[in-house]
């Protein structure tokens, strides 16, 4: 019987290798046929959110006027993580890949490994050449790999400080603190008096979120998880300073811990006024505050982040979703045309803000009078765009690494340990770095 099994295994191995080798060839469907260069073209879009689908559908006429194509578009919704998994699986199978894909930042990082990004995605450098100087460099960095740009960000996801203006006024909280440090020492006494916190950190099971809350302040402080070369950068004085600041804040009550910024715990905290201010990206108004506390419309305002005494800017960035054209298809050129038309035209950037709330990625659009004058009802009529326009030059660049999801596991555990006092900040960071290094080498 042992012999039979061995034979069986050997047979399986042979067959399997043959299959595996077979799969590696020809991941470009129809690579042999000539690319479509004009006329009607039907494109398939994959994204995780309906808002993008509507936006692209609304861009078809404009794209047709700027390119030789007549576009029609079909869209499929897939979760952000699943989208990349499925994209790769379809590419291996050699069919069924979309023409355009919306890649959430953290999942885009998965494509940085090996030659995935160059194999799957069309470089956009030529397509953006004309306007490159006007594009905000900080948002090109994360979607660039080996010097080529592979996706256009939908947003400059700037981080601001959200505050309950009504309660700030009533309880005498300063709206423009000189520094985070000052604000934290006020917040400590404020918590002792009122039981309310002026910020929150995530400690739940969404590991990306746990890391993101820390990452945003780290970026603001001038640090980053990775440096421009993709090397780990969490064992720096900046990182330790930011984490110490957060840990002290949690321990003093200035900050509170919540398990999910979009879910039950944050909703409760916002409703009962335990949290009356927090730092988060521009999209948090639409996806965090409005759905969870619609009744607080009019009471919220945004403002710049207090700066750190040690240095850094007054804003940060968090998140982002880049749209890419899939390479190797007869429709790649048409897809590139649609992505660039939909995303780069100034009018489109204006529309993206008014319809989806995403900030323009072209610097010049920040001077648009309509946007500057637009008032945000949820923010009590505040001219939110003015705030973002005043901060946009502070937006720090984000550098990714193919290994960012490894860091996410290691770091999120270490951060929670630090918030809970199980580890000192420096210890937490060096533990996370050690875990990261032991796993990232593969």
């Amino acid at each position, binding site marked *: 019987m042992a012999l039979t099994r061995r034979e069986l295994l050997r047979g399986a191995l042979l*067959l399997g290798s043959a299959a*595996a080798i077979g799969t590696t060839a020809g991941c470009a469907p129809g690579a042999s046929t000539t690319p479509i260069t004009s006329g009607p073209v039907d494109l398939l879009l994959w994204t995780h959110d309906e808002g993008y689908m509507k936006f692209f559908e609304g861009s078809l006429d404009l794209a047709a006027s700027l390119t030789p194509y007549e576009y029609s578009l079909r869209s499929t919704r897939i979760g952000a993580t699943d989208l990349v998994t499925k994209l790769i699986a379809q590419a291996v199978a050699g069919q069924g890949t979309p023409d355009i894909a919306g890649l959430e930042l953290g999942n885009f990082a998965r494509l940085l490994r090996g030659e*995935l990004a160059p194999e799957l995605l069309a470089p956009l450098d030529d397509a953006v050449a004309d306007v490159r100087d006007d594009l905000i460099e900080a948002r090109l960095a994360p979607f660039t790999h080996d010097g080529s740009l592979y996706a256009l960000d939908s947003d400059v996801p700037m981080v601001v400080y959200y505050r309950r203006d009504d309660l700030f006024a009533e309880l005498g909280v300063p709206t423009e603190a000189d520094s985070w440090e000052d604000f934290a020492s006020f917040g400590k006494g404020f918590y002792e008096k009122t039981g309310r916190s002026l910020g929150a950190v995530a400690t739940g099971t969404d590991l990306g979120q746990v890391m993101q809350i820390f990452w945003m302040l780290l970026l603001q402080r001038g640090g980053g998880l990775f440096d421009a070369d993709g090397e780990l950068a969490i064992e720096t004085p900046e990182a330790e300073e930011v984490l110490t600041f957060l840990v002290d804040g949690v321990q003093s009550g200035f900050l509170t811990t919540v398990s999910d910024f979009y879910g*039950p715990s944050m909703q409760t905290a916002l409703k009962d006024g335990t949290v009356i201010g927090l730092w988060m990206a521009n999209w948090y108004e639409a996806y965090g505050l409005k759905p969870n506390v619609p009744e607080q419309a009019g009471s919220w305002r945004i403002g710049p982040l207090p700066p750190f005494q040690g240095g850094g800017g007054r804003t940060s960035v968090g998140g982002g979703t880049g749209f890419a054209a899939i390479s190797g298809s007869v429709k790649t050129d048409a897809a590139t045309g649609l992505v660039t038309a939909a995303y780069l035209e100034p009018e489109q950037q204006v529309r993206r803000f008014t319809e989806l709330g995403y900030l323009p990625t072209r610097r010049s659009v920040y001077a648009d009078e309509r946007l500057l004058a637009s008032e945000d009802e949820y923010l009590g009529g505040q001219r939110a765009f003015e705030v973002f326009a005043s901060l946009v030059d502070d937006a720090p660049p984000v550098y990714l690494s193919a290994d960012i999801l490894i860091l996410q596991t290691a770091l999120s555990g270490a951060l929670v340990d630090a918030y809970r006092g199980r580890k000192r900040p420096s210890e937490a960071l060096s533990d996370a770095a050690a875990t990261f290094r032991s796993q990232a080498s*593969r």
Partner: protein
Amino acid sequence: MTTTTTSGAVAAPPQAARARTGGVSAATQRAPYLFIAPFYVLYVLFMIVPVGAAIYLSLTSWVGLGTPTFVGLDNYSGLLTDSSFWTAAGNSGIYVAFSLLVIVPCSLLIAQALNTKGLRARDLFRVTFFVPMVVSPIVVALIFSMMLDREYGLVNSMLYSLFGVPGIDWLSDPEWAKVSVSFVLLWRWVGYLTIFFLAGLQAVPRELYEAAELDGAGAVRKFTTVTLPSIKPVTAFVVVTSFISAAQLFDEPYLLTKGGPGEATLSVAMFIYRAAFERQQFGYAAAAGVFLFVIVFAVSQLLNRALQIGRAS
């Protein structure tokens, strides 16, 4: 035929019927092969090639696209020194122990209770244990994260108001997170296993109980002398498949804690999934998969031996 038949309490006169083997028709000889053919057809078509490919990939470094680079046994030696892998293996060990030592016995007891004669509202209780299975996984994650939230959760507020226990960090404390995952495991699996036991209990002849009652046996003795021996084949099935499922556990830690905090609840199956579909280390994932397969298969074979499953006479 199998040794289990004799212990299965169908009161069969041991192997008397075996005497028949004299003239077996060709059709009778062919029958079992035809009966099992569908499985092997599908096995050959859809299992051998992927498994072979996985074994081959385990010897390569592959990001999921492009040409795999042959690296020999590097992935395997890497696993041996990967602390994450051993953490995951340890956690999976805990899940296995918990499911065999707690969940399986609980299911048997619940099945026994539900099988009690004249139990009122029996249907209601039966449906109850089935309910967790029909709850969609997303909702399981959502509801439990609400109930177990440290600051705002139902469980902590009840513990506080009843016993003054301060907030327990059910999902983000490395030890409590294991407890929470285990609890959800219990919650989701008990119904399944109860059903298997119930189906087994149906086949225990009432006469055996009546005979035991005549001998003056109490509930406990009836359970140990009649029920347990009678349902041994089913129990063996439940034990072996529970072992295999627990060793390959993925859903519960993934839903509840994403393997966190850190890697405190990471299971081996999650480790494999993470390597393949988050980190694009397909070769490494395949190696871990082969490793898991070998261990699970070897242990389940031992269990089979011990429980006398599928042993040809």
